[in-house]
């Protein structure tokens, strides 16, 4: 975006009453939005306060989740959340961006519209359907076909060693990738299409091939928007509950193997919240929600730092 056209200039004058009224409404809408999120954070902190007080920072580093003894620790779940989301965004970003490039620049008219439509429809599938399909179709396929194949080729690495249950980190990552691909593809496709034709034509006039134009000129120009799409998609992956909990194996353990069952923050909350009865248990679960909020914050902060450093290196 930044390379393609000059900075969107702040030409903001409020001359008429309509303008002032408009400004007031715009401010009000944005303030309401900000207030919602702050309120959410406050509620999470209030709800998790008893647990914060009782367990302190040990909560984040402890590995045991024992509701009977009321001993709670979040480390395996943080690991599972980050690992599955990472797998998901790597897969989805690659497929999504490549797919978007195809749809925006290379697909013939008769193909682009229906194909985009099909991909967007993936977003309409309810999470529980993803979960059931993952459990009954993908997990057995992983156990009988994909897993053994990967283990044969890459079994010497700790990532692909160990018993293959069918459910586990990799399966959950794949299901998540499917769920977030429409977001990445649709937004990336829109962003790429919005890059003005002049840029493409200028590049081709210099003698590049169409593919080189698409990947080396247009994609960098659309970089910020695509990155935003990935961030949104990553957010959805971090918070997804039902589909993940059906295919992840729900074992609160940290393991090097991608085939091992794992557990995510959102899954624990979804699994145990409706049955939790003691107040410290409920509080511990809400604290997991708060931790997820902060994990999301950290991931987004890192993403922003990466963008700023890239923009900074451009200007120099």
């Amino acid at each position: 975006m930044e390379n393609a056209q000059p900075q969107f200039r702040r030409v903001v004058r409020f001359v008429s009453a309509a303008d002032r009224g408009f400004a007031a409404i715009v401010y009000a809408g944005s303030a309401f939005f900000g207030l919602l999120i702050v309120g959410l954070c406050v509620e999470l902190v209030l709800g998790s306060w008893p647990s914060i007080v009782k367990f302190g920072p040990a909560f984040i580093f402890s590995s045991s989740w024992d509701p009977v003894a009321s001993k709670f620790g979040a480390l395996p779940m943080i690991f599972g959340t980050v690992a599955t989301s990472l797998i998901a965004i790597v897969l989805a970003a690659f497929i999504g961006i490549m797919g978007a490039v195809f749809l925006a620049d290379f697909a013939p008219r008769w193909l682009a519209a229906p194909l985009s439509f099909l991909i967007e429809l993936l977003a309409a599938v309810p999470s529980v359907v993803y979960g059931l399909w993952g459990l009954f179709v993908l997990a057995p396929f992983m156990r009988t076909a994909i897993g053994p194949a990967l283990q044969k080729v890459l079994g010497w690495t700790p990532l692909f060693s160990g018993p293959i249950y069918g459910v586990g980190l990799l399966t959950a990552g794949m299901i998540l990738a499917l769920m977030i691909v429409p977001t990445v593809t649709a937004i990336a496709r829109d962003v790429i299409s919005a890059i003005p034709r002049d840029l493409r034509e200028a590049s081709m006039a210099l003698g590049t091939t169409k593919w080189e134009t698409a990947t080396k000129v247009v994609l960098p120009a659309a970089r910020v928007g695509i990155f935003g799409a990935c961030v949104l998609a990553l957010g959805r992956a971090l918070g997804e509950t039902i589909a993940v909990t059906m295919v992840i194996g729900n074992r609160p353990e940290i393991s090097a193997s991608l085939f091992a069952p794992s557990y995510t923050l959102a899954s624990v909350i979804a699994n145990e919240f409706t049955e939790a009865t003691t107040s410290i248990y409920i509080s511990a679960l809400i604290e997991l929600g708060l931790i997820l909020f902060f994990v999301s914050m950290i991931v987004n902060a890192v993403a922003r730092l990466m963008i700023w450093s890239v923009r900074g290196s451009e200007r120099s």
Partner: protein
Amino acid sequence: MIRPLIRSLCALTVAASMMLPAAAATQLTGAGSSFDFPFFSKAFYVYNQKNPDVTINYQSIGSGGGIQQFTAKNVDFGATDVPMNAEELARAGQAVLQVPVALGGAAIAYNLPGVSATVKLSRQVLADIYLGKVQKWNDPAIVKLNAGVSLPDMPIVVVHRSDGSGTSYIFTDFLSHVSADWKSKVGTGKSVQWPAPSSVGAKGNEGVAGQISSTPGAIGYVELAYVIENHMTAATLQNKAGKWVACTPEAVAAAAASKPEVSATNFSIVDASGAQSYPISGYSWVVVYKKPADAARGKALYDVLTWLVGTQGQSNAKSVDYVPLPANVQAAAAGTLRQMQH
């Protein structure tokens, strides 16, 4: 074109909402255990047909959710698989009555390709499987119980419920009763820390059933209704009296009948005595306030619940693969309900 379209859509919506039938005179709400949901949906439907001016809206948001909403007085009654304990009763503020309303059992389903005979498991062996001490199907302990059956050299994949559930509670309660090791290491609860190294958690009965059916060598505990409806293979267990019993409604009823003095503070019927008792059985409970806020709603609630625990209400249980309460327990429940000030 857009504006007239939106206008007509709005008009259509308003017209449609006016055509819908009006709400009944009294609408009671209840929330809680998902175990009770099929039974309640049948029973309350039948009740509404007999008493058209009373509708009961029951939603399965989980036992914990049910207790929370009941305590917050957002619903008229709650349903829970484990009765409210002292802390929860204290939080409710007012006096609470707890009555058993449904009975169920957990069957041990498994997936052993090539083995056509039903596997027999003793209580100790089952506990050892879940503790991780017995890790293969052809372990001598299992072979000893199944003479004549050739068990394969396959690792046992132990499946449990990942979501907090009353079925998990009953099962861990059973394991705590039969294995001192389990009781000290793990304990009883709706969610516990499962010790077996090969254990996998699946969400809901359908998750456990799905995991078992797609993993050779898997074993797990599933609600009776689920096993019946989906024709799953379940193991025969040895009960406290030493007899081998399969998980059937009759066996669960026998377990309940062996302990007529059940109450909210003494509610466990796992590992019951009696030759025909199935060892993994348990009740589900409804909680109401002794003095409901609204007298008219209190009366309606009293009528519904008394009908529910009576013979007529309980007769709906069989059609949904649930076990009716034994006669003595029905009488005790009705007696508890009579304490309601209505």
